[in-house]
């Protein structure tokens, strides 16, 4: 643990829904730690429990057993030190961009003038200074994401939790947002816990990739990404990139196959396709 805030520790965390007799187990005896001050990526197939992981860190859901700690303190509920950017925009559509960004400081009764100054700074940084008095519905998807980032950053969180935030965006906007997130992290150094199902996104953005198994989710592999910062798209052609991608893909195929098999053997031909693809990799 370095001196930076945002260290997260999962200690024997189990999250299950439903009755005792037939529970739906999402996480089971999950034990891992993520390093503060780094860009941490969680990668896994759909339905493996990545969103539940984020929800537990954010404090929206409580573990059925075990506990999650941030910087040594147990997480009991939502808080300003852990801010979330969701898959679909959670901006308040009845408030302007400026009002949205100011929501956190206003809720804390902080000095309005100072907060407004910070807000303008952040809006300039995310490039939305001309849209401060517009409503979220008047912004494009990429702009909405940037507004959400500003809304979160003004509260100086210790960790940013991002749950597939670029999912609905088109490829160009997505790449721009990835580059932007990279720069932002390199500039501000806030611990990131980023969930994605896109492996390329994970390698481009991350310092460390945690690969999750099929449900119930556990961390099956941790891969360090030894690409230099600031990140550049030319690195996608590097040897290190290919190496990380190969390592990750092998495991991901296994896990995808497992989650598919868990749903019955009806998809036998798809599982066959998985195996073929995996052999082609070698």
């Amino acid at each position: 643990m370095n001196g930076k805030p945002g260290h997260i520790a999962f200690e024997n965390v189990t999250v299950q829904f439903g009755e005792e007799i037939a529970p739906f187990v999402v996480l089971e005896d999950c034990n891992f730690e993520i390093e503060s001050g780094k860009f941490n990526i969680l990668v896994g197939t759909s339905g493996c429990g990545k969103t539940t992981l984020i929800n537990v860190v954010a404090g929206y859901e409580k573990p059925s057993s075990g506990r999650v700690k941030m910087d040594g303190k147990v997480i009991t509920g939502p808080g300003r030190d852990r801010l979330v950017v969701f898959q679909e925009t959670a901006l308040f559509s009845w408030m302007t961009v400026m009002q949205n960004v100011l929501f956190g400081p206003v809720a804390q009764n902080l000095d309005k003038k100072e907060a407004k100054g910070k807000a303008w700074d952040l809006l300039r940084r995310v490039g939305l200074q001309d849209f401060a008095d517009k409503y979220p519905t008047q912004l494009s998807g990429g702009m909405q994401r940037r507004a959400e980032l500003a809304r979160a950053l003004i509260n100086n969180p210790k960790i940013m939790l991002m749950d597939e935030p670029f999912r609905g965006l088109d490829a160009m906007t997505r790449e721009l947002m990835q580059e932007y997130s990279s720069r932002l992290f390199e500039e501000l150094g806030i611990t990131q816990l980023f969930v994605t199902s896109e492996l390329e996104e994970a390698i481009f953005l991350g310092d460390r990739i945690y690969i999750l198994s099929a449900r119930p989710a556990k961390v099956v592999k941790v891969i360090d990404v030894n690409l230099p910062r600031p990140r550049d798209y030319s690195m996608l052609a590097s040897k290190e990139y290919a190496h990380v991608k190969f390592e990750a893909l092998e495991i991901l195929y296994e896990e995808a196959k497992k989650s598919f098999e868990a749903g019955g053997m009806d998809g036998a031909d798809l599982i066959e396709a998985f195996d073929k693809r995996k052999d082609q990799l070698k």
Partner: protein
Amino acid sequence: MEIEAGSKTLPARMKKIYNVHAFRAMFAIVGFFILWEVLCKLKFPVFRNIPPVEEVIMGLWDVIFLPKYWASWPASFFRIISGFLLAQLVGVPLGLAMAVNRYAKDTVFPIIEILRPIPPVGWIPVAIIFWPTREMSVIFVAFLGAFWIVIVNVLGGAAAIDLRLRRAALSLGASRRDIFWKIILPATLPSIFTGMVVGMGITWEMVVAAEMIAGRTGLGYMLWEFYLTYKLGALIVCMISIGIAGYISSGLVRLAGRKLMPWRRQF
């Protein structure tokens, strides 16, 4: 909206579009009356007994000079506004209370769900017996009509609020009061206004029905009187008057909605 090509400035373009729509509306209304006249004169099955357009125009002539007719407009409007406003003033807070407070919902909701299916028109006898004046009886029936609509829409709107919005607010440090006033209330406003627009229509239905049965003044009462005295032309004029009055009322509600919800582009 038609896209007018060319370098016209926006106001000029809007004016042209407005005129096209207005022209079409006038054309349709005139066409409607022509069709009516033709069907009556050709003695089509149903249209044989319906007064043709010239009888309606003669009815209009009678009605314009009837002070009682003009007095019926404010009489009806008073009941509409009273019943409608009461329904909103009681219904919106009650609906919101049920949305946020489990205890309130568990106690009040069953009673509402048992009473709601009773059509307000069915309440008229009880209303006449229960309330001291006819006026209050009519307003009560109007109130009921709008009240159920308000409750249903408020509850539905509050339930439909995205869970992530609440979660985002909690993460940003919002208190319970903040969540109610800054998240739940604004997010439910569009549903509240839908309830108002629908409720306004229902209120008119209830007032007209109540006036026909129990009233001594008002547009609904006039309609019934013209029926009893077999003044069919005037009767049709009365019906059209009610339509116009309802249109004005709904228009006012929509205008209020546009002002109060600037973030909704179309309403």
